[in-house]
């Protein structure tokens, strides 16, 4: 008797929490279809805010900046992070404490400190050399910096999970160092690289603080655009962009889940 009350209470609490987690998102989606521009009352379904988006050049350029930034930084981080992850694995018996500290630094550093460090540094370099004026290039550098650790750790843990004899078997079966990379390491790593890329991509899309401090006047990304729109006064248009971004993330997440599910089943 007592137990069942406990269980019912837990279940109720679970659904309450789920409601709490999804309510703000649902409200954003709902009001993106609102016919009026009121944030308090829903007056009817309309697509007018979505239509407005299409005519808004600032939003379209923010979208392309976001995608460009995410793709380029993820690719750069993938190469660098993959190398460092392999190096950490191959030399795991050495004392690499300094490397571990270095790799965890971007993860543990508070975003705001990360962002303003980059900003002050880029300003100083720009002052000294005229290079690295704030814009897409500085944002790419900053994003790669926080993506590298995640790629490295994913690659490292994939290697650690492998039977070490596999590396030796490849050597033993006449694979030259180049062939080992081509026919053993890269194929074995493929799932890890795909998920590392997806993670880097979403981290980049999701980032606001670091982008905010390293961006230039021409390189606003979607989160930055939304931020400044909010500061200027809440407009229902933001609901529409936000809904589209949520959809994009949901689709990407479902796709990557489906991919990984298929990999384990087939």
């Amino acid at each position: 008797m007592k137990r069942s009350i406990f269980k019912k209470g837990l279940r109720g609490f679970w659904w309450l929490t789920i409601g709490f987690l999804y309510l703000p998102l649902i409200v954003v989606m709902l009001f993106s279809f609102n016919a009026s521009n009121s944030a308090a009352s829903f007056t009817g379904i309309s697509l007018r805010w979505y239509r407005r988006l299409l005519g808004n050049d600032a939003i379209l350029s923010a979208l392309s900046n976001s995608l460009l930034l995410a793709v380029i930084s993820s690719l750069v981080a993938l190469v660098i992070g993959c190398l460092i992850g392999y190096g950490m694995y191959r030399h795991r018996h050495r004392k690499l404490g300094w490397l571990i500290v270095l790799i965890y630094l971007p993860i543990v550093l508070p975003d705001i400190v990360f962002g303003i460090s980059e900003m002050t540094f880029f300003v100083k370099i720009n002052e000294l050399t005229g290079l690295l004026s704030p814009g897409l290039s500085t944002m790419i550098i900053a994003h790669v910096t926080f993506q590298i650790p995640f790629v490295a750790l994913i690659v490292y843990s994939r290697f650690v999970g492998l039977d070490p004899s596999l590396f030796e078997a490849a050597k033993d079966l006449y694979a030259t160092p180049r062939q080992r990379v081509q026919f053993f390491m890269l194929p074995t790593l493929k799932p890890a690289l795909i998920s590392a890329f997806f993670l880097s991509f979403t981290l980049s899309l999701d980032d606001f603080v670091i982008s905010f401090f390293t961006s230039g006047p021409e390189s606003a990304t979607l989160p930055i655009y939304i931020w400044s729109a909010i500061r200027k006064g809440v407009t229902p248009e933001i609901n529409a962009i936000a809904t589209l971004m949520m959809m994009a993330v949901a689709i990407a997440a479902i796709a990557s889940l489906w991919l990984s599910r298929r990999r384990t089943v087939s």
Partner: protein
Amino acid sequence: MSDPQMVMDESLQRVEPQESAVGERGERLAASSIEMKGLHKRFGNDAVALNGVDLTIRAGEFFTLLGPSGCGKTTLLRILAGLEEADDGTLIIGGKDVTEEPPHRRSVNTVFQSYALFPHLSVRENLAFGLKMRGVGAQEREAKVAEVANLIQLGELVDRRIDQLSGGQRQRIALARALVCEPDVLLLDEPLSALDAGLRSQLQVELLRVQKRLGMTFVFVTHDQQEAMVMSDRIAVLNGGNIQQIGSPREIYETPINVFVARFMGHDNLYAITEREGCRVTTPVGTLELEGGSEGEFVLIRPETLDLKLGHVAGTNHLPGRITERLYRGSHAEYRIAIGATSLQATVNNRGHHLPDVGDEVTLVVSSEDLVTLSE
């Protein structure tokens, strides 16, 4: 599958290489010999893995490196494979000095203890891996893979994924993946240790069959002396980075040269010689008459060479005692017999007559020629 008993009988004689199952390349079947000279290896600053190993393995031989863990047998095997570099010494395989060659340039293949099958490849792709790396064309690869899959009787599995295979199947695929490359030497690193007893003895027989059929040089690492005796043409017993003894299974078992080898081969009846007068020696179990010319500080009495007589009977090499323990094993019985302050093990075949029981006074009889002396 062929009758295990027959295969084992076959293994007792040296089988000359006759026909090849992998290709019709008669010349390769003059399989390669291996020569090791002064191989040294240490890990870190203090752990000595190999302490100057000199060893010659004959072409076409099933050779076993036997010893407890940490004796250096696996290090030696890895040096043969090129996965570990010797600090010093030379290694010659098939007349060619390969000391400095990296593994991918040695015609040597390994069956790993964990099998090390590539999880991202199918069975077929695993089997073809070595050939592909060597640049063998797709058609020839296909033919060879089919042939080797046939040899190990797993033709129907080639399109499976690795995680769909049982332990025994994986073991055989690992063997086939190494064999298909037709190496000069095949190295096997405790390949059967992960299998249960029944499967293990079945695969021992199969492995022997393949080796005899191909006439390939096999170097086999194990810590199981039973397995070593069943499989090998010759055995090297290692301890602490040194070779203790090299010989046929019978030599190693019946005439171990020192206490370590004797104990490792499972012998318990080892007694220190306290006094010596010509051929007569005194030991804790009594006075024994040895054959002429035998030297050493210990005497070994193998349990199966002892005869058990009821009551106390006097005579040379007659040892009186009392049965303290009997383990009935069906085909034979194992006895522990107290003699003075010490005890002795004896094995008696069950021929259907009376088996003495615990508490019986008995006399153990052994002939001088069955007594082995050995050194510390």
